[in-house]
C-alpha cells in the first residue's frame, strides 16, 4: 500500500493541484501581459479559474451525428496525460534519486497525448472546420517533433542518461546546460517547439479563431470545454517546467533557490508571452518548412556541438 500511496500523493498534490494552480496563474500572467501590451487593463487574478467554473455551469452540447463517447472522453484523456507528465516531472525534480515511474522518453511520448486528444476530439465532432483544425494540429506535430527530439537529446548526449533525475543532478554539479553553447541553441529550438505545442501565436493555426473559429474546439461547450481549458492551462505550466528541468537545472525548493526557480519559470512564461504578442500567425506549410528547415539545422548544430563537448 505504501508503494502505491506515495505516487498517489504526488499525483493529487503536485501533479494535479499544484500544476493546475500554477497553470492558472501562468494563464493569468499571459493574459495580463497581453492586455498591457495592447493598452488594456487585463483580467483579475482569479479570472482563469472563474472562466472554468463558469464553463462547468453551461449546457454541454453534442453535435449531431458525432461519436459521443469519443467526443466526451477526448478531453479527459488529454487531461490525464498532462497530469501524468507533470507528476513524473515533479517526482524527478523534488527527489532526483527516486526517479521511479518514467524517464525522458516516457515524458516525450506522454507530451503527445494532449495533442492526440485534441485531434481525436476535433475529428469526433464531425465538423469540417474542426477536421481542418485537427489536421493542422497533426501536421504541426509532424513539423516540430523532428527538431524537438534533436534538441531534447542534447542533455542526453551530455549526461549519457535518459533519467530525468540524473539530468537534474548532473546540472547541479556541472552547471546548467543553457550556459553551454550547444545547450543554448537547443534551448532556443525547444522554446519555439513549446510555442507550437501550446498552439500559441505564431503557431496557433490549429485553432485560428479568425479563420476556423477555434478548430477542434469549435463544437465543445460546457464541461468538455472546461476540461480542455484546464488541460491547456496546465500545459502552460508543464512545458516550461520540462524546459527548466532539461536545460535550466530544475526547480530546487530550499531557501533562495526556490525564488530563483520561480524567476526562471516566470522568465520562460514571459518569453513565450512576448513571442506570442509580437508575431503574426503563419500558415501551416510555412510552419512545417520553418521547423524542418532552420529549426532542424540549428538543432543539428547543437547536437554536433554537444558531441564536441561544448
Amino acid at each position, binding site marked *: 500500500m505504501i508503494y*502505491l500511496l506515495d505516487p498517489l500523493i504526488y499525483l493529487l498534490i503536485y*501533479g494535479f493541484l499544484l500544476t493546475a494552480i500554477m497553470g492558472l496563474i501562468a494563464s493569468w500572467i499571459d493574459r495580463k501581459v497581453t492586455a498591457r501590451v495592447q493598452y488594456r487593463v487585463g483580467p483579475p487574478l482569479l479570472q482563469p479559474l472563474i472562466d472554468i467554473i463558469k*464553463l*462547468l455551469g*453551461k*449546457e454541454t*452540447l*453534442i*453535435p*449531431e*451525428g458525432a*461519436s459521443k463517447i*469519443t467526443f*466526451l472522453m477526448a478531453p*479527459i484523456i488529454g*487531461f*490525464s496525460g498532462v*497530469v*501524468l507528465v507533470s507528476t513524473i516531472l515533479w517526482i524527478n525534480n523534488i527527489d532526483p534519486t527516486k*526517479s*521511479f*515511474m*518514467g524517464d525522458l*522518453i*516516457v515524458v*516525450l*511520448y506522454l507530451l503527445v497525448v494532449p495533442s*492526440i486528444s485534441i485531434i*481525436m476530439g476535433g*475529428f*469526433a*465532432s*464531425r*465538423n*469540417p*472546420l474542426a*477536421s*481542418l483544425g485537427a*489536421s493542422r494540429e*497533426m*501536421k504541426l*506535430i509532424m513539423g516540430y517533433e*523532428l527538431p524537438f*527530439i534533436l534538441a531534447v*537529446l542534447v542533455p542526453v*548526449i551530455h549526461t*549519457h*542518461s*535518459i*533519467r530525468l533525475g540524473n539530468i537534474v543532478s548532473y546540472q547541479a554539479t556541472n552547471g546548467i546546460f543553457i550556459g553551454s553553447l550547444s545547450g543554448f541553441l537547443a534551448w532556443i529550438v525547444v522554446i519555439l517547439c513549446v510555442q507550437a505545442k501550446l498552439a500559441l501565436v505564431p503557431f496557433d493555426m490549429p485553432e485560428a479563431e479568425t479563420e476556423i473559429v477555434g478548430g477542434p474546439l469549435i*463544437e465543445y461547450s*460546457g*464541461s468538455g470545454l*472546461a*476540461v480542455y481549458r*484546464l488541460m491547456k492551462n496546465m500545459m502552460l505550466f508543464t512545458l516550461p517546467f520540462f524546459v527548466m528541468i532539461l536545460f535550466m537545472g530544475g526547480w530546487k525548493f530550499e531557501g533562495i533557490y526556490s525564488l530563483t526557480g520561480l524567476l526562471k519559470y516566470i522568465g520562460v512564461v514571459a518569453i513565450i508571452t512576448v513571442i506570442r504578442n509580437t508575431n503574426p500567425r503563419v500558415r*501551416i*506549410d510555412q510552419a*512545417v518548412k520553418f521547423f524542418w528547415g532552420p529549426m532542424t539545422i540549428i538543432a543539428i548544430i547543437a547536437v554536433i556541438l554537444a*558531441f564536441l563537448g561544448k
Partner: protein
Amino acid sequence: MDLINLELFKIDSLSTFVGVFVGLFTLLTVIYSFGFMDKKKGLFSYYFYIILTLVASLGVVFSNDLVLFMVFWGFLGILLYLLIGVGEKPNTSKTSKKALIIVGGADALMLLGLALIWHLTGTFKMDGMRIPLNSAEAIWAYLLLAIGAFAKAGVMPFHSWVPDTAEDALTPVTAYLPASLDKLLGIYFLVRLTLNMFVMNLDMNTFLMAVGSFTIIAAVMMALIQNDFKRLLGYLAVSSAGYMVLGLGTGNFIGIAGGLFYMLNGAICMSCLFMTCGSVEKNVRTMDLDKLGGFAKIMPITFITFVIASLAISGVPPFNGFASKWMIYQGIINVGKNGGSLWMLWLVATMFGSALTLASFMKLIHAVFLGQPSPENPARKDLAGGRIPKSPLISPKSSHGDRAEHREVNPVMWVPTVILAVLCVVFGVFAYQVPLKMFILPSLKMAVNFSGTWNATLATLLMLVSIAIGIIIYFLGTITKTRETESFVGGEVLKEHPDMRVSGVELYNTVQDIKSLKTIYNMAKNKAFDLYEVVSKIVFGINKILRYMHNGILPTYLAWCLLGMGILFYVLILR
C-alpha cells in the same frame, strides 16, 4: 551418419515462444475467416492452405538443420503465392506473382548462402555454428541469408510485395501472412542468424541499424500519402519491420530484447488492424478512403479495437508498442556509450518515425471512423437519418450486396480483434510481468539492465486515477444534461452542403507539396524505388537487346558464327 543423430529438430525457448504465437495467430485468423469468407468459392483450398502454412511455419521454427529449414521456408513462399491467389481483385494474380518472385528470388540467394556456410563450417546444424564475420565469405553468407529474412519480413528494399498484397489479397490473408506470421518468421530467422549462427561485429550491426532506420522512415513517409485503407496499412507493416531489424542491430541485450518484443507487438497490432479493416470492408466493399467515413457510430467495437491497436503501434504509453520501443531506444543509447555519433541518427529516425506513424493513423481514424461519411457511402443513410440499428450484433445479410444493412459485424469477426486489442493492453501494462518474463527474456537467456525507468503498471494506475479526476470534474458540471444540436459551420446547414466535407484524403497534402518531398514522391509513384519493378525493367531491357540480335535473318547468324570461329581460331592457334 544415421538418422537419429541428425538432430533435425530442436526445441528451445525462442522457438517455443515463436511457435506459440504462430499457433495463436492461425487460430484467430481461422476464427475470423469463418465470419469473413461467406459464400465464396474455393473455401476448402483456402483453409487447406492455411493449415499447410501452420505446419510449414512450425517446421521452420523448430527445425535445426538448415537444409530442412530451407525446405519448409521455400514451401511457405509457395503457400504465400497460393493464398494471395485466393483473392478476387483484378490485380490479384499479378500481385501473387510479384510476391512469389521476390520471396522466391530471396530464397535462391539463401541457397547460395547455405552453400557458403557448408564451405565455411561443413555442417548445417544451426546450434553448432558460431561463424565470426572476419572473412569476405562469412560476410557474404550472412548477407545472403539475411536477404531471405528481409524479404520475408518485408524490410526495404525487399518490401514492395507487402503493400501490393495488402491491397489485392483477401484481408484475412494479409492479416495472417505479411502482417503477423511473416514478421514472426522473418525476424525469428534473423535472430537465429544474429545470435546463434554468426558472431556479429560492429560494422554488421551498424548495417542492420541503417537498414532498419531507412525502412522505418521511408515506409511511413509512403504510408502518409496513400489513399487506400489496406495499402496504407501495408506500408505501416513494412515500417514496423524496420524497428525489429534495428532492435536486433543494436547488438546489446536490451536492444535485442526490445526488437524481439517489438516483433511480437508489431505482429499483434498489425494483425488486429488488418482484421478491423476487413470488418469495415465487409460493410462497404470499398477501401477508398475518400468513400468511407463515420463508421465509429455504427461499428463501435471495431472502432475501439482499431484505436487501441493504432495507438499501440504508434508507441503511445501505456500500450505494448511503447514498452518495446522504449527498450529499443535504450539499446540505441547504449550503443552510443561506446563512442561514435551515428546512434543519434538511429534514435531520431525511430522517434520521428513513430510521430509519423501516429500521423498516418490519425488520417485513417478520421477518414474511416470519425469524420463525415461520404455521399456515395451507403452508410450515410443510416447516419444522416440518425437511424441506429437496434441490435448491432446481428450479421449483415450479404444477399443485399452493396445495399447491405450497415452495423457491427458478427461476433465471429470482432472477437479475434478484441482478443488482440486486449493483448495490446495487457502486454503494455504488465510488460515486465507477462511478455518479458514469460517469452522474451527466457528465449534470449540473458539478463537485461534497464537504463531508464518506465513503471507501466503504476503509470496506468495513475492515469486511471487522473481519468477519474476528469470524470469527477465532468460531473461537477452539466454532463448529465446534454443536448444534441446541428454542428456549426459559419451558419450554413451542413446536410445541404455535402461538398463541405473533409474526407481525410487531403489531410497531408501541404506536407506532400513541399518541394524536395514532392520530387521523391513523384519518383516513388513511378516505382523508381520498387526493386521488383527496377529489376524487371533491367531484365526486359537486356531482353530487348537480345531480341534485336535474334532477328531471324540468316546472314546475321552466319556473321556471328564466323566471328565466333575467328575468335576461337585466334585463342587456340595464334596465341
